[in-house]
């Protein structure tokens, strides 16, 4: 959930109500709140108008910086902790193609791993 969506939720505000106050299209507010349009991708003026309509500082609705792999300003543990918060738990939910192709599984699907590899020659190093 974006910060903007959280604020709207907490204040029980609709997209239209905020849009009217900010003189924006409700669709613009919705796209920003749902994350469909990243808030970093819109004009500063738009962000300013929404913040002003909500009487909060601009920084309150900006999303935190996504941590970057290898960021030397953070320890490895801090980097990974931030990554779990920002990558695994935030954003979306965006439409994503299900990996399930058909209702009927293939014959292999029901085999256990040992059954699946049962006919493999010994020493194939499958568990190496």
């Amino acid at each position, binding site marked *: 959930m974006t910060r903007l969506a959280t604020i709207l939720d907490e204040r029980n505000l609709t997209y239209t109500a905020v849009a009217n106050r900010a003189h924006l299209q409700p669709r613009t507010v919705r796209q920003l709140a749902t994350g469909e349009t990243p808030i970093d991708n819109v004009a500063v003026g738009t962000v300013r108008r929404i913040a002003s309509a909500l009487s909060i500082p601009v920084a309150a609705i900006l999303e935190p910086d996504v941590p970057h792999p290898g960021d030397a300003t953070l320890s490895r*543990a801090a980097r990974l902790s931030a*990554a779990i918060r920002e*990558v*695994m738990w935030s954003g979306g939910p965006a*439409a994503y193609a299900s990996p399930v*192709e058909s209702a009927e599984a293939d014959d292999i699907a029901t085999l256990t*791993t040992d059954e*699946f590899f049962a006919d493999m020659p010994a020493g194939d190093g499958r*568990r190496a």
Partner: protein
Amino acid sequence: MAVGPEVYRAVAESDELSSGDVAFLSLARTRLVGESPPGETYDPQGRIPAYPTPALLPLPHGREVALDTLFALVVTHSCEIDRQKNLDASAGHVDCRLTVAPIVPEPAVHLVGSNRDDHTVNWAAIEANEPVASLFLPPIDDVSEFAPGVDSLPWPRSFADLRGLVTVSRGMVEADRLFGLAPDYIGTLQRQLARFFTWRDLARHELVEALIGRRVVDAIPLNARGDRLRVALTADDGSSLTIELRAR
């Protein structure tokens, strides 16, 4: 359903890289500007998984690199990772490429099917590792149990998506490795990889429709089991599909 303690193991920074390692990575997709797929919009025809809002790096001649920042699972076999080291290549000359699959967390996605219909129910099949293109990764209450030093955080239900395989440097995996898969579950990963690279789904209805009126120029029997035979057909326009014949 597999549970955390059966699936994950802790790895120390000094541990050798291994198949099943999970790391925080930048994954690059090179493409034409505006090309679709792959893109950021779910493509119902191609069933291309779309990772939202990548960073974009422009390239000359209408090309660009889309960078996704994700956790990913190393699928390269451990023997392959160690191959050159075992051949006495010095560390600086060890092949640096590892194949990884992006990890898709449940909170970030809404699974949809070919008609954009809701496929949330598919999580049950994913948990059972029924799809050929995914490896289920169960949730954990406290990730620090497997990654000492990392904050006490939950890890959501997720899956490694084999449709999004890319290669990265081994140095990148070493720098931001979180934990690894337990040896038994690496066996499950290998089973999924074997299925993914050898088994193809039967053709979808729209592909069958598209073949009507075309001349079949090649038919290759794939496998037979019981009273069923799978055959790959190639049409005169180069398109192909797999059908299943059943004896009566």
